[in-house]
């Protein structure tokens, strides 16, 4: 073949052979770049968006270069439960990513397919102290850690309240109660559900009702779960026994909820996870239970609202002081082909230097499971406006509050079904919307939960 460039067929063949030889010679160098093997990661696509994802990508790339591991990093959204579908599909196919971000319940669900992480957790606990009970409940099954609590995406859903509206209409100075310091202020000891009820009534009368969702989305499930727990109103105990009908504490919690919802707009029974955020950003509510994501949007879209938002724990109940918590967890599939690299990366991501970067990038949204890190990470102290607004967002020892997973301490395989079907919220809806008698509501809940116990 002679073409217009003047090359003969032999030239072309020769050049091709030279190219193949060159690429073959170059191959060891390529392998050298991935001496630590390949690793496929599927991490949660952060609500905060690109800044948080970029921080994660930078940390992972840096680690990959230093350890000569060829990494593929996918950010998988939880919108439309895409992350749950990915987890289910990979569990069925027994192939996919090496490491995935598992939402709240899915470590228990796939425990038989998850690599034990005792070695990693052992070293982390030795270095940073114990993780919070909620994360342990989700990640440690029997005596084995099946996952490692991650920072990115892990959140609290305490109070995000308007400083001005609560002061003006309910006489509550939230900044004084929870100053941006390691101490409680005056009034914090009275921050309980009774005080909350009065404040809800006054704010509603003033035209700023609390935006408390009561549907089946997680914002509703989480705060209602924390409220029930603070009354000691467990629907199922840790051994899997149903404790609904003859449980005075469940009755107390329901009775309280019925009184509270007299002051909550009825449309909140149809609210999703964005409804409360929008209400805060639009300046139509005095309080929501949410991480600082609503505040972050307000900072951009409604700065006058953001300047008046303060984050602090949810109210205490008669039995305990619980605040809603929603951790994400790193899990390594047993069918991963590079478990050692996967574990090394997870351990690297859990070190305080990396955690600080992730917390910074998420403007304080992300929370590590190790409370010992809180004072060493200065993001929550620096974020503004107002300065210190998220200081009390992570639960600190002086809050004397505990992180709560809705429906804990029930065995996870029962709890997850109660959680996704929002049993407590439906109990409240039946009492408030349908005016059903307490006995009927309890009987309905018991029958539903009995169905969740099948193996």
């Amino acid at each position, binding site marked *: 073949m002679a073409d217009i460039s003047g090359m003969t067929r032999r030239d072309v063949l020769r050049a091709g052979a030279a190219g193949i030889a060159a690429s073959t010679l170059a191959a060891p160098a390529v392998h050298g770049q991935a001496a630590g093997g390949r690793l496929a990661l599927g991490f949660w696509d952060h609500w905060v968006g690109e800044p948080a994802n970029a921080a994660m990508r930078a940390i992972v790339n840096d680690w990959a270069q230093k350890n000569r591991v060829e990494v593929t990093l996918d950010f998988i959204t939880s919108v439309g*439960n895409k992350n*749950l*579908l990915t987890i*289910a599909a990979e569990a069925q196919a027994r192939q996919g990513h090496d490491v995935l971000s598992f939402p709240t*319940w*899915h470590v228990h*669900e796939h425990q038989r397919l998850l690599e034990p992480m005792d070695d990693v957790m052992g070293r982390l606990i030795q270095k940073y102290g114990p993780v919070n009970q909620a994360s342990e409940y989700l990640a440690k099954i029997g005596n084995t850690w099946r996952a490692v609590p991650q920072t990115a995406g892990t959140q609290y859903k305490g109070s995000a309240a308007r400083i001005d509206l609560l002061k003006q209409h309910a006489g509550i100075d939230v900044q004084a109660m929870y100053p941006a310091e390691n101490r409680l202020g005056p009034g914090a000891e009275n921050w309980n559900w009774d005080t909350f009820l009065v404040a809800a009534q006054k704010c509603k009368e003033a035209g700023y009702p609390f*935006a408390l969702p009561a*549907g*089946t*989305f997680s914002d509703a499930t989480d705060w209602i779960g924390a409220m029930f727990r603070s009354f000691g109103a467990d629907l199922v105990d840790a051994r899997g026994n149903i404790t609904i009908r003859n449980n005075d504490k469940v009755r107390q919690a329901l009775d309280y909820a019925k009184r509270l919802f007299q002051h909550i*707009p*009825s*449309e*909140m*029974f*149809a*609210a*999703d996870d964005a*409804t409360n955020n*929008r*209400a805060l950003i*639009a300046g*139509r509510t005095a309080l929501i239970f949410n991480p600082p994501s609503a505040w972050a949007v307000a900072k951009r879209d409604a700065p006058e609202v953001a300047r008046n938002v303060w984050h602090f724990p949810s109210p205490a109940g008669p039995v305990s002081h619980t605040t809603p918590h929603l951790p994400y967890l790193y899990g390594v599939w047993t069918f991963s082909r590079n478990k050692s690299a996967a574990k090394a990366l997870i351990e690297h991501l859990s070190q305080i230097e990396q955690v600080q970067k992730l917390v910074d990038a998420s403007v304080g949204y992300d929370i590590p499971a190790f409370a010992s890190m809180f004072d060493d990470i200065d993001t929550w102290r620096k974020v503004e406006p107002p300065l210190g607004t998220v200081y009390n967002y992570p639960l600190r020892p002086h809050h004397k509050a505990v992180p709560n997973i809705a429906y804990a301490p029930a065995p996870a*395989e029962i709890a*997850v*079904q109660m959680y*996704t*079907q*929002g049993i407590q919220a*439906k109990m409240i*809806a*039946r009492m408030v*919307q*349908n005016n059903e008698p307490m006995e009927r509501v309890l009987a*309905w809940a018991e*029958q*539903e939960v009995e*169905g969740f116990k*099948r*193996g």
Partner: protein
Amino acid sequence: MADGNVLTAPGIPAAVAPPRTGRLHRLARRRSTLAFLMTLPLLAVIGGLVAYPFFYAIYLSMLNKRMTRFVGLDNFAFLLTRETFQYVVWQSVIFAVSAVIAKALIGFILAHVLHTLPAKGQRKWRGMLLVPWVIPPAISTLAWWWLFDPTYSAINWMLMGIGAPPVAWLGEPGWARFAVILVNVWYGAPFFMIMYLAALKSVPDQLYEAAAIDGATGWQKLRYVTVPMMRNIIAITVLFSLIVTFANFDIVRILTNGGPQDRTHIFGTYAFQVGIQSGDIPLGSAVSLFMFPILAVFAVFVLRGVTRRSKEMAG
């Protein structure tokens, strides 16, 4: 050409005639073989994306929750004892039947209105009326959700503008059911309209002329000419729409997520909640397969009727 099996042309000497074809070669030249090969990609798609998942779902629905043990029909029997699932069955029937009836009626009326329009303007109206069906339902449902939004409902804003009280469209069970059915009707009515319009255009004008000579009124023409001529298309459209409406997912998922109090859940959304969100894939599969036998029997009867009528008309 009668068939594809054309062999040696007559009059050609044996020395120059093509070599005698083998069975394989003959098979390859048959039209049915060619047709099979050409439909093979489609068959592969249907096999991989419809048949295999269907049989796999049947298999999954007969496993225990941990997918470690075969339990036969236990999951189906268990579902029947659950109050929530009984609601789901009832709601799915209300949702599908009322939506299909409304879509069929609206489609029928719209088709007749369009049919009477002059040909010049008809295309414009036809295009506009098809818009709801052309927009991906996930997107149009989001727009509807904004109209029904719990806090900022545009419909409520208008209601309050005329002094009427706001309605909790998605927060009150009755209104929420109405809302999901309304959106489904809005989305699906154009499909009925276009099918019925095509059927109307195929009714011979001579039948109407003969009816007019016999002194038939407009109602009688509709009753004794139009409807009998459209019966097959009506049956097939209703069957198709019923199946699709029973299998709906996106509208309920986006508008209400099955709430409030599970009062808008239908098979698809409940199966997703039980199977994917709650991690009980076998039970979720059982939920999604529950209507299959009923719809299959319904489809057999409808299609038998269509075949019988077609034969009568041909005869």
